[in-house]
């Protein structure tokens, strides 16, 4: 029987998965662009960055992709990655992820270099440890069936949030190789990135290029955005509530500045998140719930 408790638990799990994915991407980006003491020269990273596929791409030539993470270690090397905290139970739905990786394993354009190209790059599936091996097996089987289905520079890196006294994100390569020898050495043995360091460096980043679970946006609106606007509101005696005005465009813009894409490095290729349509959905949900903000005096 589906109880309220179970529904609540399932929603909370989705929220946790999303937040862990954001943290894992940030931690992995830090691993690529940071040498442990300072940011590497000519390094940069972006979420949902618009990259151009080469004309020779086997899947969709000359189109655009938006990987979850594009991390450039130097002017000569970078990583594009897709992140997955969980995967569909049905393995036949995993083919789309393999195809996506195949698109990323290409001579992409859009790097932070003069001609936007880079000498070497790898396409990485950043996947939670619980699914890492299964996905590796799946990828290997696909490769056996069709050698072109997996690119030459594709790898799987698994991650895990370690519940130690000082929690950290752990990364280890499960499939393929990383062309950069320094990163490969670290990622082969396994690399720990403390969560605390991620929070210190990127305390406000809450979203990436994937749609967050609705409760996460609703919590942000209800516990942060709307209360912060109470000063501008008018008290409605009849409804015993504060009336505040909010519109999807302004909310999107402010959440992007505070917690999303505009809080990271920004140029014309940068992704935009949270997206307007996500915020609109959250507003629609609030309207469905006939929301009222009660001003506690």
């Amino acid at each position: 029987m589906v109880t309220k408790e179970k529904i609540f638990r399932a929603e909370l799990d989705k929220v946790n998965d999303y937040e862990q994915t954001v943290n894992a991407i940030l931690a992995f980006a830090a691993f690529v662009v940071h040498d442990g003491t300072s940011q590497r020269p000519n390094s940069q990273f972006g979420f949902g960055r618009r990259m151009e596929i080469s004309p020779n791409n086997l899947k969709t030539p000359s189109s655009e992709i938006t990987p979850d993470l594009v991390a450039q270690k130097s002017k000569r090397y970078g990583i594009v990655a897709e992140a997955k905290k969980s995967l569909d139970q049905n393995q036949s739905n995993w083919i789309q992820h393999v195809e996506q990786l195949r698109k990323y394993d290409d001579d992409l354009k859009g790097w932070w270099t003069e001609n936007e190209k880079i000498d070497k790059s790898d396409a990485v599936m950043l996947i939670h440890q619980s699914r890492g091996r299964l996905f590796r097996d799946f990828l290997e089987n696909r490769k056996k069936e069709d050698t072109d289905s997996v690119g030459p520079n594709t790898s799987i890196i698994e991650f895990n949030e370690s519940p130690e006294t000082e929690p950290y994100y752990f990364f280890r390569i499960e499939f393929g190789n990383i062309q950069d020898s320094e990163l490969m050495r670290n990622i082969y043995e396994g690399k720990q990135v403390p969560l605390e360091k991620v929070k210190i460096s990127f305390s406000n980043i809450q979203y990436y290029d994937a749609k967050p679970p609705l409760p996460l946006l609703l919590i942000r609106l209800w516990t942060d955005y709307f209360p912060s606007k109470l000063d501008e509101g008018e008290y409605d005696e009849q409804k015993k509530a504060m009336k505040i005005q909010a519109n999807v465009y302004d909310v999107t813009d402010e959440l992007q500045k505070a917690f999303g894409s505009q809080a990271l490095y920004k140029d014309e290729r940068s992704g935009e998140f949270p997206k307007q349509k996500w915020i609109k959905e959250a507003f629609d949900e609030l309207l469905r719930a006939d929301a009222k903000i009660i001003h506690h005096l």
Partner: protein
Amino acid sequence: MYRLSTPQEEREFEVFIEALFKQDNPIKVRNELYRLNVPAPYRLRIKVLYSQVSVEDVIDSLVGKGRLLRFKGESRSYLLKTMIGKRNPVEVSIPFYIESFDKNGLHENVQAIIAICKTNQWNALRRLSKNSYPKLVPILLSQAELIQSARRLKKVTGHSVNVRALSAKESFNGEKGTFKKSVRVWTDEELEKALLSIQDRRQILTSIDIEFFHVIGDQTHVRPTAICKIRKNGEIEVTGSYKLAFDAVATQIAEVGASKLRFFAGRGLRLSQYKPRPLAVNFSQPVFQKAAAIRQFVQILSKYPHSMHAVEHGNPYAHVKLTDIYDGSSFDVWAISPSRIALMPGLKASEAAFERLVDYIFDRFREGQIADYGYEGKNL
């Protein structure tokens, strides 16, 4: 010190006090306060307050709305007419005056309310300021700040400083766990000795009564120049010299409070142009090594008064979203490291809300050192 013994004497004294505050010039008011001997059950009371603009402006905005009027003239003097008592309510008139710390270089966003009144009258004045929160923000002193301030008083005044009494909370182990009890301790110890004993007994101070003795050479006066009861909420109850109490004690509280609230100010993401300015509460010893401590911290946060909360993680680390319902400030509170709490401001995070949250954590969980959250963050 004498005591008024009849209602008639009390009425006459209250008329006299009203006349004192009614004077049209603040210098005259100040000089009379310096000369005045306040008889029991009345006390000269000071409350140091903070406001984003000026405390006087906030009080002025209340004039005419309720039962508050401002006396004519240049003095910042007011009269609050209100009812006190639940069973047999009585209307009382409480005159009070606002004093600045401008000669100490403090802006008018830190000022003090001065009144000469009985405890129940003072409570009515407290309600006035409490109902104006967060426009009027009390200065909430931590244990460390209270102790540092007390230590500094010795240097500032050149007086011998003794602790006469203290109120504190003390932990004790009962059958069903650890509990806290309130204690009132009477003593006559030199300040440093008293502070050591507070440390030894792990007491959490709520107020401390300090006596100031005039010293010439090696000789100490037998009677104190002033006795000040200093509360953690920035209130001082004075017996004896108002000048000493205001210039030394109130000024010290104002400086500590102003510095702390300035440190908390401008950290909301909207005000900081979306550049995060999180704060840390650092502990000298690891406190989150066991899951029980994380659970206890989350439980404490979930009982934060006048707030909404969402617990996103309770194990192996804590992440709680808190919204201060008083003014809509919000925070993401993290306990990731064993010896640190991170307070990440949301879109709005007023200095008042920061102060209230930090004070609550210090009071209910434990005290730490406030600093910028980062590798080499600046300490408060």
